[in-house]
């Protein structure tokens, strides 16, 4: 009969934490920060299809580092939960805090109950009316939640990246300033002997939650628009996002209207004045 070794709960938790931390530290980093026009996500990602950054709901985005299969599973769960709540109540009743709490419960349960914790760190970001109203929640492998002050870094060497980002970041930055600050922070580590390096535009995954849009605010920034921002082209700040035209660029009355449909408010277009019945 095999000998049963005793392992104290502290030891088990320490081992699991170490496993998760090591897994996360191996990966490339991701940054989330507020800027004047919304919330910016920048991740170093060699793949253009396996995303680290994605859309959850109208004003909520998701960024993650670590094991792809594990955070992809969490992302899908978040989309399902948000869509279910938005359909049962209203689109305006879906908020980032509820989602962050659900993720914390899930990650906490996995950390204590499963033999292997999720090797992921995620950020749930909700864009508000002003940079002060933005909410960035950091969720770690053990289910702890932190409300971050307008910027955060996750992944390998997150602390030194975070330090560079903190010295550069202001909530009233323009989009191109914010992108350049984020890329500077990301590339400040990982070179020869810990020196800075350059990261090519095709190794960056960049997306925003655009504060001024109605309805679904998540937009990816790729190709020429991204290169323009990296080169400090001021005009690129106002470059129209690819995709649909005719979307209001400033908040309108419609932003406050009750959405008739469960589809996004930005699809409905103009709302009729109420007829005098």
């Amino acid at each position, binding site marked *: 009969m095999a000998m049963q070794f005793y392992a104290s709960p502290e030891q088990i938790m320490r081992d699991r934490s170490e496993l998760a931390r090591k897994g996360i530290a191996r990966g490339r980093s991701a940054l989330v920060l507020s800027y004047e026009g919304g919330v910016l996500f920048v991740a170093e990602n060699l793949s253009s*299809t396996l*995303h680290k950054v*994605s*859309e*959850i709901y109208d004003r909520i985005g998701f960024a993650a580092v670590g094991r792809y299969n594990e955070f992809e*599973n*969490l992302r*899908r*769960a*978040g*989309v*399902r*939960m948000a*869509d*279910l709540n*938005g*359909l*049962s109540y209203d689109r305006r009743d879906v908020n980032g805090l509820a989602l962050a709490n*659900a993720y914390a419960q*899930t990650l906490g349960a996995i950390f204590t109950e499963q033999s292997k914790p999720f090797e992921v760190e995620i950020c749930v970001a909700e864009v508000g009316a002003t940079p002060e109203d933005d909410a960035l929640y950091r969720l770690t492998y053990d289910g702890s939640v932190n409300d971050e002050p307008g910027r955060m870094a996750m992944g390998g060497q997150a602390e030194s990246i975070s330090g560079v980002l903190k010295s550069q970041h202001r909530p009233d930055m323009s989009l191109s300033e914010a992108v350049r600050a984020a890329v500077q922070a990301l590339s400040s580590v990982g070179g020869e002997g810990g020196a800075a390096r350059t990261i090519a535009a095709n190794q960056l995954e960049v997306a925003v939650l655009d504060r001024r849009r109605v309805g*679904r605010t998540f937009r990816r920034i790729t190709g020429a628009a991204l290169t323009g921002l990296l080169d400090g082209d001021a005009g690129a700040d106002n470059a129209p996002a690819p*995709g*649909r*035209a*005719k979307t209001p660029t400033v908040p309108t009355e419609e932003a406050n209207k009750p959405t*008739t*449909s*469960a*589809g*996004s408010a930005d*699809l*409905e*277009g*103009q709302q*009729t*004045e109420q*007829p*005098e*019945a």
Partner: protein
Amino acid sequence: MFTNAGTSSFTAFLSKVAPEMLPGRRPLPPGMAADLAPHATTIVAIAAAGGVVMAGDRRATMGNLIAQRDIEKVHPADAYSLVGIAGTAGIGIELMRLFQVELEHYEKIEGAMLSLDGKANRLASMIRGNLGAAMQGLAVIPLFAGFDLAAGDPARAGRIFSFDVTGGPYEETGYDAIGSGSLFAKSALKKRFRAGLSIDDAVRLAVEALYDAADDDTATGGPDLTRRIYPVVMMATAEGTRRLTDAETATIAEGVVSGRMENPGG
């Protein structure tokens, strides 16, 4: 239950975690229920050069009564497609909301939009799910139209799909109408539709066809000049979906009405 791997379909997810939220999954007491709830009426769709136009009247009826004068039955399904609902209003609105979430959900989970045919097939299976209720008089029939991003020729990118209570979809050529006034609307379109219409002409034609439907069908509402209630007109083109503003539909509807002052048959 949220983290289980599996489907990208929101309705398939709902059928596992909240089947009571699917309209077809509710047990109904036996007997006909057709007179219980308001009915939404006529919708027309016309394929034009570079897109498709869909318009619906604003009336909902309950037997001989007008239940609502300003109901909106044409909605965007997603950024490039439109859906209009005829039949039992409550179930129709619910199905439409569910369909909108279904398309958006797939897009978010998979990172890519469904093809136009894929969207039509999803809608068909959702309608099929309502067959039991339809047999008791609570039928819902949608009309689906959209701009096909995969179409080689942009002139042929506007496509229309119709359905019946058992599902579908049936792709229509040129134009289609559903609802109680559809017979008259289609007759009007049959004589006036030409392939390759411009979007503006198609909008005018849609409002004309709704006028003809309202002319002969009591359940379809014509332009209400006194209350300023006009048809909902939407279009799907390469730029996405757009709903005409009230001012734009007012101008078109008033033009149609003044034309009919001289020639009531149009």
